[in-house]
């Protein structure tokens, strides 16, 4: 079974605190930090990981993530190098891993080739925000399916009820629920508008569970978001940790533990 599917199935059965998904940019802060960050996130207790494939023109992202993309590209990061870095990850990494990125680098790599590589290294799903749903369904879904990859769709407060239902129908794994009308990293916390949006989603009884992203940065906002969904996604706030870190492994682990609020005394 796909690791993402299993994670959400188990979470549904166990009904404990929220699932934490952390985003980071591959090849950042240094080219070969990708697997170090990945390992430290797992060691800290993250539930799933979203590895960003850096892109020159990330329109859905705010300044923090764009800067990390620029830096990673300066470091020489590429899709090809990413697959080399990840080739042995399943020897130690057991959490579900998603790749997030924009469609152009994937198209240049070749969709078929890209999906085959994902399956080979043990990637479980993809988030490609600028891939249109109809293109996915008509051209790529069969390739994704053949390689056991889930495609994660996004919804926003502006997404119509009809479209949410459609997205729910074609989604597997979870639905990426963007908390507000914004790019990544621009707002923070959960306000009353979001509350009613989340309540509206709850009332729809979707078949997929949801993770809330955009504006989640610490334990408090994570807890808030998790009370409205299966869990939440942190991106920009974690990139800021990586920007400032002097002890990468320690800082990453501490960040995850603080967000999930594991007592510091329990050694993992």
């Amino acid at each position, binding site marked *: 079974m796909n690791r993402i599917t299993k994670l959400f199935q188990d979470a549904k059965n166990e009904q404990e605190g929220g699932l934490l998904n952390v985003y980071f940019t591959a090849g950042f802060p240094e080219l070969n930090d990708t697997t170090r960050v990945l390992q430290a996130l797992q060691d800290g207790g993250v539930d799933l990981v979203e590895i960003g494939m850096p892109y020159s*023109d990330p329109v859905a992202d705010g300044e923090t993530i764009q800067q990390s993309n620029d830096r990673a590209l300066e470091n020489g990061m590429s899709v090809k190098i990413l697959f080399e870095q990840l080739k042995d990850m399943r020897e130690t990494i057991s959490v579900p891993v998603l790749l997030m990125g*924009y469609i152009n680098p994937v*198209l240049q790599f070749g969709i078929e080739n890209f999906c085959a590589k994902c399956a080979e290294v043990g990637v479980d799903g993809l988030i490609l925000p600028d891939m249109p749903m109809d293109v996915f369904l008509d051209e790529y879904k069969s390739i994704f399916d053949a390689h056991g990859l889930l495609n994660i769709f996004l919804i926003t407060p*502006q997404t119509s009820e009809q479209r949410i239902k459609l997205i729910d129908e074609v989604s597997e794994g979870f639905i990426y629920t963007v908390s507000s009308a914004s790019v990544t990293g621009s707002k923070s916390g959960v306000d009353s508008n979001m509350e009613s949006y989340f309540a509206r989603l709850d009332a729809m009884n979707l078949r997929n569970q949801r993770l809330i992203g955009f504006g989640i940065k610490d334990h408090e906002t994570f807890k808030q978001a998790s009370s409205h969904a299966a869990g939440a996604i942190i991106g920009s706030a974690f990139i800021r940790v990586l920007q400032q870190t002097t002890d990468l492994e320690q800082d990453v682990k501490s960040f995850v533990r603080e967000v999930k609020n594991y007592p510091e005394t329990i050694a993992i």
Partner: protein
Amino acid sequence: MESIVEKRSFQVDSKGYYGSFGGAFIPEMLYPNVEELRENYLQIISDPSFQKEYSDLLRDYVGRPTPLYRANRLSEKYKTNIFLKREDLCHTGAHKVNNTIGQILMAQRLGKKRIVAETGAGQHGVATATVCALMDLECVVYMGELDIERQAPNVARMKMLGAEVRPATCGSRTLKDATNEAMRHWINNPVDTHYIIGSVVGPHPYPDMVARFQSIISEEIRWQLKQHTGSETPDYVLACVGGGSNAAGAFYHFLSEENVRLVAIEAAGMGVNSGHSAATTALGKPGVLHGSRTILMQTEDGQVTEPFSISAGLDYPGIGPQHAYLYDSGRGTFMSATDEEAVQAAFELTRYEGIIPALESAHALAVLGRLGASENETVVVNLSGRGDKDMGTFMKYID
């Protein structure tokens, strides 16, 4: 096979594609905005009250029809019949305003209160700020930090017109980054804001909508040429291509007439293979840029590369999806002119005809000598803009 035999329209299909190019490759955050536009734009454009307001403004405010001028001395030099479509005489100095007038009326009918736009050289920014002043709508223009430094007079014009000019400080700090920032602004302000894209780029329906607003250029060329020559169709239509809005407008009503050769001229910068060029079809590959599948300049890994041209208006790493289709299908002829050739052509037109063209438009003039047009043939060059804004560059060439 049938589709090949059938007469091709080269217009957008019902799904938003030109052949395999086009579409709407946008994040979900932009979907409702773009969908609202897609659902409404054709109905709004075909509404008689819209059409009246649009054509009245084009006549009384923009100054249309712009003349189609037979350039006698230039014709003599190149031994053919050259006509200049004088878009340089439009209000604000270029064809850009045809589109911004159309889009501001569109925005009003969609109930939008604010306008966001991107600009490279500042021509589209000025044309947008102008119509926002005219209609009393709030205007934010994103411009690359580097371009703000290079194009101070246009920045001043936009500010005088009441627009807020915001610098794009990420990436290469030029047009493509300004476009990214404008898209982000639209994501952050989805309900009350309309994004006025300046060229035939972006997600469907933008390329088609902008081409329709620019199609007035070829509509006029047809009847004006008939008055001059007795025929509505020339043998060649020449236009420069950055994103390609003036070319889209100049080609529009000739697309299905395959005896009219449509010639798009890209900016070769310091030379197509110099590493400092914006000749997209020569250097690019199919991919996705700013919401549509098109041809773009990119690395092997699919990262968008930074183009170069002396002309800021052609300094863009992609072309509109319709142009990608014209190139791919062979319907369009794609040529390029270097910085030097463009400057020379600008001086030539100035000395032969007393018209100082924009550097962008000069690229189209620069290929006249290699076109191979005969004495009996007719060549229409779309003179998309005037050269006032480029005097700083031209001054360097005046001894």
